[in-house]
C-alpha cells in the first residue's frame, strides 16, 4: 500500500440532505506533487478533503487510489488503508486532547507499527522548532501551534499522500515559512500533497491549483502567481 502512486476523485458529490454542497467531477493527484484547493469559506473544501481520505463517505462518486475504490471499503479495512496511505491534518489540527504534543505525533507512528517511534516523533517536532512544546497538551497550545504539531505528525509518518486542511492558518510569518518548507520537502521526498487553503501564496507555490466555484471543484491546473489564482477564482481563466 505504501507504493500507492495515484489518487483520483471521480464524479464525487457531497450532499447534506437534499442540498448539494460540492462536486468534484475529475481530480487526480500524483506522488511527489502538491495540489492546492482554494475556494470561499463554506464552499465544501474540507468535506472534499474528508471524502478523499475516507473520513467521510461521498453522497455519490468514487475515490480511487491506484485501482482500489476507497468508497467501497468499510470499517477496519478502510481505517487500515487510510492509516497506511494518508497523513491527515484536520482543520483544528485533529490532536487527541488528552495526549501531549509528542505523544500525538508518536501515536500515529505506533498505530502504523513504525519502530523507534519516539525519537522519530521528537525529530519531526524538532524540524518545526516545536521541541519546547513536546510535553504540552493540545489545550495548552495556540491554534497555530496545534496546526504545526499536526503537520509534524504528517512529516514523521512519511505516508504516500497527505491531506492538509488550512496548514498555514493562524501561523506567524516564520512558522508559516517552516510549514511551507516542510510541505515542499515532503513532496520532494515523494509524498502527494493536497492542501485546502486560503493562503494564495502557498497555493501559488504548489504544482497545481483547483478552485471551487459554483459548487464544483475544477480540474487542477498549473499556475505561476497569486494573480493567476485570483483570475481563476473570478472565473476569468
Amino acid at each position, binding site marked *: 500500500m505504501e507504493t500507492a502512486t495515484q489518487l483520483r476523485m471521480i464524479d464525487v458529490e457531497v450532499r447534506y440532505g437534499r442540498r448539494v454542497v460540492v462536486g468534484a467531477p475529475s481530480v487526480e493527484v500524483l506522488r511527489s506533487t502538491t495540489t492546492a484547493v482554494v475556494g470561499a469559506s463554506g464552499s465544501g473544501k474540507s468535506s472534499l478533503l474528508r471524502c478523499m481520505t475516507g473520513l467521510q463517505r461521498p453522497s455519490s462518486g468514487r475515490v480511487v487510489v491506484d485501482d482500489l475504490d476507497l468508497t467501497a471499503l468499510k470499517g477496519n479495512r478502510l481505517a487500515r488503508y487510510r492509516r497506511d496511505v494518508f497523513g491527515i491534518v484536520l482543520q483544528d489540527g485533529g490532536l487527541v486532547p*488528552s495526549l501531549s504534543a509528542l505523544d500525538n505525533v508518536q501515536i500515529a507512528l505506533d498505530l502504523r507499527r513504525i519502530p523507534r517511534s519516539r525519537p522519530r516523533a521528537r525529530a519531526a517536532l524538532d524540524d518545526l522548532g516545536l521541541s519546547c512544546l513536546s510535553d504540552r497538551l493540545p489545550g495548552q497550545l495556540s491554534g497555530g501551534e496545534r496546526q504545526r504539531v499536526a503537520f509534524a505528525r504528517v512529516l514523521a509518518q512519511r505516508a504516500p499522500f497527505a491531506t492538509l486542511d488550512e496548514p498555514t492558518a493562524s501561523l506567524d510569518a516564520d512558522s508559516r515559512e517552516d510549514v511551507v518548507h516542510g510541505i515542499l520537502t515532503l513532496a520532494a521526498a515523494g509524498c502527494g500533497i493536497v492542501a485546502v487553503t486560503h493562503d494564495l501564496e502557498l497555493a501559488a507555490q504548489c504544482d497545481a491549483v483547483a478552485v471551487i466555484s459554483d459548487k464544483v471543484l475544477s480540474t487542477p491546473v498549473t499556475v505561476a502567481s497569486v494573480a493567476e489564482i485570483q483570475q481563476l477564482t473570478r472565473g476569468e481563466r
Partner: protein
Amino acid sequence: MIGFLRLLRASLLATVSDWRQWSAYGAIVFASAVVVGACLTGVESAGRAPAPLGGMVSSWTTPAALMALAAGTTCLSTVSRLTQSQFDRTRRAWVCLGVMPWPGRALIIGEAATVALAATGAGLGIVVAAAALWTPLPLASGSLTLTTGPLVVIGTPSAVAVATAPAIVNAARRFPPRSRRRGTARIVSTILLTSSCLLAVRSMPSAPAGRDGAAGMVPWSLLVVALGALTASRIAPGAADIVLSGLERLLSRAPWNVTRLALRAFAVAVRQNGAGVAIPMIGVAVPGGLAAVFLAGDQALRDAGALAPTEATLNWPAAISLAAAPALLAALTGALVFILSGPTRRETGRNLVAAGATPTLLRATAAAEAFLIWTLGTISAVSVIALAASPLLSATRASAGTWIAVVVNPLTLGCAALSLLALCLGSLFSRRT
C-alpha cells in the same frame, strides 16, 4: 433583560440538542426517585401497620431504604458531576457572548433543576400510582396497606435534592469557567466521612457481648458498609490518580496501544470527574457488604454455639430482593456513564481515527477503560466489605478461607458481574452513538 431572555432561549434550545446528556441524567434521577420512593413507602407503610406485621416489614424495609439512599445519592452525585463537566465548552462560549456571572449561574442551576424536578416528579408519580394500585399488598403474615405520606412525598425529593445539589451548585460557582481546584467543601466532607467511618469501626465492640451477642454487632457493621462505601467513593479516585501517575511514568517510553490508551483515558477521567468509579463500587459494596455482615454474624453465632452448623440467619432470596434495587440502579448508572461522556469520547475518537486508529481499536480501548473503572470500583468495594465484616470475623478468629468466603460471597460476585456487564454494554453503546 432582553439579552438574558435570548440566552435563556439559547440555553433551552441547547438543552434539547444535548438531549443525550440530559436524558441520561434524567433517567438516573427518575430511577433513583423510584427506588428511594419505593423503599420509603415500605418504611412509612410499616410504621403505620399493626405491631407484628409492622415490625416484620420494618426489619427489611429500613435497611433497604438505607441501601437505596446510599446507592441513590452516590449515583446521583456522580452523574450530576459528569453531566455538568460536559458543558464546560458551552459555558466558555457564554463568557465570549458577554454573559455576566449571575445570569449564567442562574441558567446553570435552572437547566439542571428543571430536568431534576421533572424526573423526580415523574418518579414520585410512578411510586404513588403503584402504591395506590397495589394496596393492600398481600404478605405471608397479613396484608399491608401501602401509604405514601409525608415521608415519601417530602423524603424522596429531599434525598434527590441533597444528592444532586452539590454538583449543580459547584458548576454554578465555577461560572465563569476557571481551572479546576479541589473544593474546600469536598475536602472537608471527605475528611468528615473518613473520620465517621473510622469512628464507627473503633466504636464497634471487639467481641460479641451482652444479651444480643453477635447480633448486637450487625447494625454497626451495616453502618460501616454505608459509611465505608461513601468514604471509598471519595478516596478511591484520589488514590487511583497517584497509582496511575506512577504507572504512566513507567510506561512513558512504551508504544501506544489499547492498554496505554485506555490507561490514559482512565487517568484523565479520574482527574476530571472521578471517572464514575463510585458507581460500580457502590453497586458491589452495598449488596455484598450486607451479605458479608450477615454471613460473618452467622459465623460468630456458630462460634458461640447459638446456631447449628447447618443453620443460617441470612435468607438468600430476601437478601437478593434487598440488594436488587441498589445493584440495578448502579448497573444502569454505570452503563449511562459512557453516554454522559459521549461528546468528549467522540472528539477523541475522531482525532484518533485521523491519527490512524481502527474502529476495533476504539472499541477495545473503550472496553478496556470500562474494565479499569470496574476493577478499581470492585477493589474499593471489596475493601469496604472486608472492613465492615472484619470485627465479626476477627472476634471469631476466622480462617483465611472463611474470610474469603464471607467477603467474596455470591452476592458480591453476582453484583460485580452485573456491574462489569453493564459497563461493557455502556462502552459499546457509546461507540455507536
